[in-house]
């Protein structure tokens, strides 16, 4: 089975390495413009469109986000299965709009196989699966990966976002809603703000009855001040350790619970791990569906995402080899009784049963 990765940046190269080291013997890494150094167990090519992508069973798009919708449209029309790492809100909307096209061609298009959206959606879906009723989902992300990711981070701060209020999507004002989020070490606490992020869109699609869904992005004062200007200096080759944080509030056995998880890893590694995990699962599905000729649960033709991928445990198992996962166990001393008790922040949120 051939897997082609289009885009030879940090995410593309790491995805190719992860797939080659996990037993795939026909992995092709295609660069659009830059020359690629040879990678062990990986064929390399240059240019787009590339014959290797046309002949591939699965194509992982790891190029700059804005190029991915048109590439995905061309590939799914031809019946090729596609895993997209696009993280820009507008690009994700354009990818979601390809659902009918992909379904008509019997192709599977995975949207949001990135760090955020992607890993954050996966953690949210994992936590939501442990609750009887979900009322609120909040996500936050910290840090950037390669230069394209840093440019997207900069753009997101200057863009209107989306959030879910009373189970309806609405526009979220950029830079508003400051919240101090405690990420695991070595990241620690960071102020996070609303921005043009795709998580609420994908989570709302997977959990249409959840009353409130919101996403935030960590930013410094300088980031916020200069968000509307062009980037004042070229982005770094790669950012430091990044993190995603997810909190889900809801009911378990009639009791209000809030549960939080996080993941830490360099952004490009986390995104590559998600893309590789999805490719791995999709390849297994394609091998199995040769007999049935139709995808089986949880896959469906058309658009799939980490948020609505039903069986998330195999994905987390694959991905956690490269990414550190964290769960939150918080308790505090009650100031009135002096007793230790769990933090139940959800009771502030007017939970409806």
């Amino acid at each position, binding site marked *: 089975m051939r897997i082609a990765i289009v885009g030879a940046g940090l995410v593309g190269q790491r995805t190719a390495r992860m797939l080659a080291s996990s037993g795939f013997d026909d992995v092709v890494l295609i660069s659009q413009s830059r020359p690629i150094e040879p990678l062990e167990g990986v064929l390399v090519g240059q240019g787009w469109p590339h014959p290797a992508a046309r002949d591939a069973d699965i194509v992982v798009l790891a190029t700059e986000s804005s190029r991915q919708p048109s590439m995905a449209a061309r590939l799914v029309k031809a019946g090729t299965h596609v895993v997209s790492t696009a993280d820009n809100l507008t690009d994700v909307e354009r990818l979601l709009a390809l659902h009918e096209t992909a379904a008509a061609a019997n192709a599977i298009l995975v949207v949001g196989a990135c760090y955020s959206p992607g890993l954050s959606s996966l953690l949210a879906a994992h936590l939501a699966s*442990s609750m009887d009723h979900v009322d609120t989902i909040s996500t936050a992300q910290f840090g950037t990966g390669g230069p394209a990711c840093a440019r997207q981070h900069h753009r997101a701060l200057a863009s209107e976002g989306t959030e879910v209020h009373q189970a309806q999507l609405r526009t979220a004002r950029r830079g508003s809603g400051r919240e101090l989020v405690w990420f695991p070490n070595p990241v620690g606490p960071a102020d996070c703000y609303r921005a043009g992020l795709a998580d609420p869109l994908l989570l709302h699609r997977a959990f249409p009855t959840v009353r409130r869904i919101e996403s935030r992005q960590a930013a410094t004062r300088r980031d916020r001040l200069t968000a509307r200007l062009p980037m004042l200096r070229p982005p770094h080759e790669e950012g430091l350790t990044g993190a995603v944080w997810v909190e889900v509030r809801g009911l378990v056995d009639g009791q209000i619970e809030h549960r939080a998880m996080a993941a830490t890893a360099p952004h490009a590694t986390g995104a590559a791990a998600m893309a590789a995990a999805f490719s791995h699962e999709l390849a297994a599905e394609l091998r199995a569906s040769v007999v049935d000729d139709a995808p089986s649960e949880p896959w469906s033709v058309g658009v799939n995402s980490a948020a609505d991928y039903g069986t998330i445990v195999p994905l987390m198992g694959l991905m956690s080899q490269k990414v550190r996962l964290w769960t939150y166990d918080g308790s505090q001393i009650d100031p009135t009784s002096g007793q230790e008790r769990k933090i139940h922040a959800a009771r502030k949120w007017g939970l409806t049963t």
Partner: protein
Amino acid sequence: MFTMFRRAVFGAAIAATTAAILRIFGGDGAPPQRGGWREVDPDDVQRPTSD
């Protein structure tokens, strides 16, 4: 000028009173006294997280 000064003092007094009320009666805003982030082993991921 005096009016502006009076308004500033009044605003500061309101802010101080609000902060004092939150400091004395606020409970959930306190950071955790125990626990915190715990790294999850890949084996733990095989089942939903529970408290």
